[in-house]
């Protein structure tokens, strides 16, 4: 004796957000029923376990049928099969594309290829996120990447337009696409302390300041790649460290500004040349794709770690970077003010974001 078939179809498709989340999280029906029971669903109307099971099955099936529409959310909005109120549609899409930042952190900067998919098992074990959910998130990354990769115009807007996501979520996806495209190194042990949000912030900075689209409002340009000319020009900054006079002058100006304002003045004065060299060298190296990938590890190794070992406070770092950047304008023979600003603006905000434990 068994229920062989059990379906419920509403003219307006009924979707419970809680069950949807369980589905997205990759629960099996049985597990989802267990979770719902713990959550007190049984108390509602003295529902029995069978009722809960039937409801869960039904909704999981509905979600499964919707899933192919969610691959390209614009399809969901003009399909005829399910009558779903617009707010619900928005919820479905947003939730479907939401991801666990721990998962995103793991795949950040990796190539979104099939090869990586095999690593999903490991990531699942490591993060405790179900494999099914990992698959979904990974496939989402890949799908968004594929669609947006070749498109012109602002990255965030492209994501938003094609996937109907909220602004915040679209920015996160832009970061993921950007990282995947430039393949930044994020996996080194020294970078482990950085969260997805740290990187997403940095990506946002890079996208809005260092890409072609950043300077040039012309829509036909792509937002995914860093501007080649700019990177090339960064070489010119080397003068700041190669010209000894300039380096000394720069140090003096910075020290003059910071005297009495920061607690680690002595260390700063002693280390100035090293720090300045580090920052300028990073800039100069960005011409090579490989070195671009190492941007974050370089920042950590060459700047963040030395400062941290000298126990700089974040306020100290901020003051230093601010004045380090601005005093360069007072250097008589320094002609690359614009590039310097563009470079240091991003570097400063990235470092500040990354400067924590």
């Amino acid at each position, binding site marked *: 004796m068994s229920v*062989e078939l059990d*379906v419920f179809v*509403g*003219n*307006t498709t009924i979707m419970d957000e809680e069950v949807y989340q369980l589905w997205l999280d990759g629960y099996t029906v049985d597990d989802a029923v267990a979770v719902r029971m713990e959550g007190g669903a049984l108390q509602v109307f003295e529902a029995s376990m069978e009722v809960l099971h039937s409801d869960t099955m039904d909704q999981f099936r509905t979600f499964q049928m919707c899933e192919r529409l969610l691959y390209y959310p614009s399809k969901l909005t003009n399909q*005829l099969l399910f009558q779903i109120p617009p707010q619900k549609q928005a919820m479905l899409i947003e939730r479907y594309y939401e991801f666990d930042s721990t998962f995103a952190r793991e795949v950040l900067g990796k190539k979104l290829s099939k090869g990586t998919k095999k690593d999903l098992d490991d990531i699942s074990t490591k993060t405790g996120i179900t494999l099914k959910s990992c698959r979904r998130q990974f496939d989402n990354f890949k799908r968004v990447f594929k669609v947006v990769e070749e498109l012109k115009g602002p990255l965030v807007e492209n994501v938003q337009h094609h996937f109907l996501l909220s602004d915040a979520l679209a920015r996160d996806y832009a970061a993921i696409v950007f990282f995947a495209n430039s393949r930044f190194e994020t996996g080194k042990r020294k970078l482990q302390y950085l969260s997805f949000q740290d990187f997403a912030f940095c990506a946002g900075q890079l996208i809005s300041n260092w890409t072609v689209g950043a300077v040039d409002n012309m829509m036909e340009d792509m937002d995914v790649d860093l501007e080649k000319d700019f990177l090339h020009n960064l070489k010119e900054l080397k003068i700041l460290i190669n010209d000894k006079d300039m380096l000394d002058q720069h140090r003096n100006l910075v020290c003059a500004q910071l005297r009495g304002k920061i607690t680690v003045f002595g260390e700063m004065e002693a280390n100035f040349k090293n720090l300045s060299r580090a920052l300028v060298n990073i800039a100069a190296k960005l011409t090579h794709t490989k070195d671009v990938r190492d941007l974050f590890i370089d920042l950590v190794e060459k700047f963040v770690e030395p400062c941290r070992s000298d126990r700089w406070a974040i306020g100290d770092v901020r003051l230093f970077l601010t004045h380090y950047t601005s005093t360069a304008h007072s250097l008589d023979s320094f002609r690359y003010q614009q590039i310097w600003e563009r470079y240091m603006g991003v570097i400063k905000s990235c470092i500040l974001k990354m400067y924590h434990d």
Partner: protein
Amino acid sequence: MPGKLKAKIVAGRHLPVMDRASDLTDAFVEVKFGNTTFKTDVFPKSLNPQWNSEWFKFEVDDEDLQDEPLQITVLDHDTYSANDAIGKVYIDIDPLLSSEAATVISGWFPIYDTIHGIRGEINVLVKVDLFNDLNRFRQSSCGVRFFCTTSIPLCYRAVVVHGFVEELVVNEDPEYQWIDRIRTPRASNEARQRLISLMSGELQRKIGLKVLEMGGNAVVGYLQCFDLEGESGLVVRAIGTACTLEKLSGGGATNNAQHTANSSPSKDMKEPVFGDECPSNPLSSGPSTPLRAPPFTSFSPSKSYSRQSSSSDTDISLTPKTGMGSGGSAGKEAGPLKILLRQQTQTALEQREFPFFTLTSFPQGFLLHVAGVVSARSVKLLDRIHNPDEPETRDAWWEELRQEIKSHARALGCHAVVGYSESTSICEEVCILSASGTAAVLNCRFLQDGCLDVLSEHSRGVVVFFCNRCDDSAPPGCGFCHVPYDELNMPFPAQLSPCCCCHRTKVPDVLFTTIDLPTDAQVTGKGCLIQARLCRLKKKSQGEGNATCISNLLPFLEYELHTQLLNKLKLCGMNALFGLCIQISVGENMLVGLASATGVYLSALPSPGGIQIAGKTPNDLTYDQHVSSIQRKINDTIVKNRELYEIHITEVAEDVIGSPIPEPRQRSRLFRSHSESSDELSELDLSHGKKDAFVLEIDDTDAVEDLHSLLTDAPTPPGFYSCNTEIMPGIYNWTSAIQMFTSVRVFRLNNANLTNLGLNKIFNELCENLLKSLYFKLRSMVPCCLCRLNFTVAVPEDELIQVAVTAVAMSFHKDQTQEANKAAQAHSQMKAIAETEEQLQFPLELNAESASPLSPKGSAPSVDYSSFADRCSSWIEQLRLRAHTIRRGSIKTSSSPLPEGRSRSLRSTRSFPGSSVSVVKMTPLSFIPGAKIVKYLGIINMFFIRETTSLREEGGVSGFLHAFIAEVFAMVRAHVAALGGNAVVSYSMKECVFMENPNKNQAQCLINVSGDAVIFTRESDQEGHLPQTSHPQPTEDTPP
């Protein structure tokens, strides 16, 4: 060549990938109507082709326009091999043939394939140019409107109700033709879909012709069904009520003068027509068929018929006795007139072949009395239909059943049957035909002189209560309960008691009907869904043996269903059932019966007694304890239910009952609510008799079963109400949030050695669990009511039971704001009543002069199995049919109890960008809460087949059916939207035949749905208050 059909193919979207190499499709479209086919160009390499074709023009007869669907096929062009079909769209162009319906069909249609389901969408434009002289063509009936709605459609007024129309057409089922062995499943499915589409077009046209002959212009309560008889063929049959409808201008007040002017000429005109045509109508097989006058075997025909002449006198003489001076005398005076009128009406109706009405709710004043449910069943052996053009056998079968129904009604002193419906259940070569309805007395001389007297005779008692809001033309809320037959000549044993509202006429103790609750019926508290469920095992056998076996089982099944219903009704503390629908499905080794109805407490009827349990072995102490504990449980349940359904009865005359019956509790609330009407001794006796009727002896296995099912029914969870009728008494303030749904369950009985008892338990649990699941699913809508809960059961295979439910959940405002507004509403209601009366009163088209041709001759002994049906239906009549009377009163068809659109639901507000799909509401009800239906666009009647050979891959049977039902909804919505509509009302799923073969990884499902496409507009806040019905609390015990 009276019509030109034009079609234009605009674009496609979301097409499937047909070419794996390029991941694209080279799509083109074939447009076919009749034998003419046009093609679009190929739009290469696109999943979103833009064809923008020219207008394809078909010049056709309007007969074809009615029969044929427009067939659109989307294909993938392939240079080297045959073009692959992507899918099809069938468009019924019938809605374009009436000037009042849709004018253009334009929109996105899902492209449907019977194997793959929906595969993308196509944008199509369709128009029809009709030439003016179309009425001269005899074979077509363009312009006749069809409505599934079983009441006069909102925004129409019935000028004349002509009566019953029926038709059936038969054909060979393509699935069983020899060619099916060599063609693909797709081809066979498409052949079937197309054939059924053609047949239903033809059927509609033929019915339309009959309507035109009768002088009508519309069919209301159109019910079309398919009988898949397998080898022996395919039957499409339909019944309906022919009417002459008139559009209400602006939904406003129609004035009375116009109304009278309209109706009387049409009447004059029509009557002769009807009289003439009726006999000549080739399809009304009346004279030609060997009439088997239905034997009411259990009580002598002579008795029931002799009653006709004498009964009315007795009837009348009884009434005035109850004494209130003026009322009595008035009644007396009205007496002779009434007799006369009634006889006239009666003869007029009798003269008509079948005085049946498929309507379930009526304009005010139409229904005088309701006597009870009449039903008939017969078991037939199917044989091959040899000549599809002469479906005589099937016609004759139905003819017999209808005759039987008619005679049952007559035995109940009624001349008409309302809420009439027909159904079949087929298993292999055995077929059970069922017909049921509610015997009623109609007021067909509503507008003539003298009718006022008749009215007053019935309304007198209540007028007192209502005098402040309705004058003598307003009908009382109790009149329909009054029995139409007289006490001395009752057709079956029943207990009559004086009406608790007017105290003047007799009412039965219980009333069963198939109609909707009349809107102005006086009801105490709320109603609830009541179901009786029963399974009976049967031996597997073949042919005649099988039919005999089924015939033998049927009466018992029906009897037990009725007992169960009655017990459950008592348990709910209620006394009347509306919308009763009894389904009996036959399988190879079992019969399944499911009776659903909505129980209510009619204020006019006496309060139901309790249920008393008695043990058979009275001396056993432990046994007594057991019995008394059950008794306690039952009593508690009754008390609880009364609380739940807010049935608070004002008891005045407790003391009167010095009844010797040893039942402790509910006793006191029993009848005798009016002490002063000193009358007959018999009343006391009656009460005893009544008590006895509900003693259950629990040694009896049946009783144990009954008890079991009584006590296992879980109450609806808080915040939920349920009913299977259009409206729920006691709930008026609906929000606009509605959710229509279909749920299907199939249960497999793995255990081969089931007993009846075990089987019943399983079936009962199946239904209960299904309901529980529904409540849980819809919990977000609380407080809400599930309306029009329509259950269908089937036994698709040996060990499978299938239950399908379609219903609508409607939220309402918890705070009964109407309490506050009561005064205002009483006022507006008065207005509404006045209005609706003007709008909706209509004369029955009757030929009162002619004599009744149907004399009650003794029946020729029938050879077939339907005699069993007689037996069984007489069982029912004897045992269960309780009569009621229809108050001659009023159904406010046009103003259904809607709340205002004040609280727009979240669902309906859309602000999300990019949603290009318009929302289409669906509901099995005839109205949409908080909205006004401004236009009926035409009938939706669609038939789909879906088949799969990859069942597992599609998510098993549940995944398969889930997708299919969703697809059917989507296609219905798309068609409605293309007609320019935004809702389907009176939606129903007529058929859901599911077959599976998991071993072969295959499944097939057929679904037939229907409804009325409409345009509705939201009412503005203020206006919305108007049409609410407030049921005045009946103060039954106050003597007038």
